């Protein structure tokens, strides 16, 4: 992605990541962990360095957010921003939550 907003921001921010119950098996039960990176994708990669496997649950192979996972920066869904390329800054709160969906037999 050649988004000028994100390419200008190359510094590494320290953020807090909110981990939902289904992903706490990776974080040893921790609900809130800190991680660093300049973008949401980098933060998730940093998380994966400490909690191997968590990235696959959140991102596709190309690094984008999985279809049935939602990631928020300070309460805003990154799908409405720049996806995994969304820039983050110190103190931001990154939230991850699986989609909740289903339906009756057709």
């Amino acid at each position, binding site marked *: 992605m050649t988004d000028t907003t994100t390419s200008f921001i190359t510094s590494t921010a320290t953020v807090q990541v909110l981990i939902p*119950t289904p992903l706490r098996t990776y974080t040893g*039960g921790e*609900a809130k962990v800190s991680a660093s990176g300049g973008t949401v994708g980098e933060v998730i990669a940093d998380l994966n360095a400490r909690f191997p496997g968590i990235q696959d649950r959140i991102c596709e192979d190309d690094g984008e957010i999985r279809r*049935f996972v939602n990631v928020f920066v300070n309460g805003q869904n990154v799908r409405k921003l720049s996806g995994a390329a969304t820039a983050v800054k110190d103190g931001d709160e990154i939230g991850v939550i699986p*989609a*909740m*969906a*289903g*339906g*009756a037999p057709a």
Partner: protein
Amino acid sequence: MSEASATPSPARERLIVPAAIQAEIVAHARDHFPRECCGIVAGKDGAITEAVRLTNLEAGVSRYLMDEEEFFRTYWAIENRGESLLAVYHSHPVTVAYPSQTDVAFAFWPEAIYLICSLEHPEAPVLRGFRIVDGTITEVEVEIA
């Protein structure tokens, strides 16, 4: 902490649903008929404290997709007050209270009990609960108290 879910007991798991919570879920299902409704159930130490109605973003009559921003906010409000998401509910307006293939395919929350409220027989709504883990459905006994 989550010993009950980590160590399956040979006896069927049981969820006690207060009558007021059951009534609220049925009322929500009826309010949204013929569309499906959805929401989450909060609790502490396995005991239900509250059912929260959430918005179903699906326009049709046989699907639900929880508004993700509402779900995210509500889930963390529950966590931050020291409670947890015990169950997720949705309605089957004209079919049985049993997980559909779609319910199983989209069951991304193995720690939650999936409650289904059927209005197949409008005057006799049925509320049943299930664990859906790795594609396997296990019924949870719902006891109205």
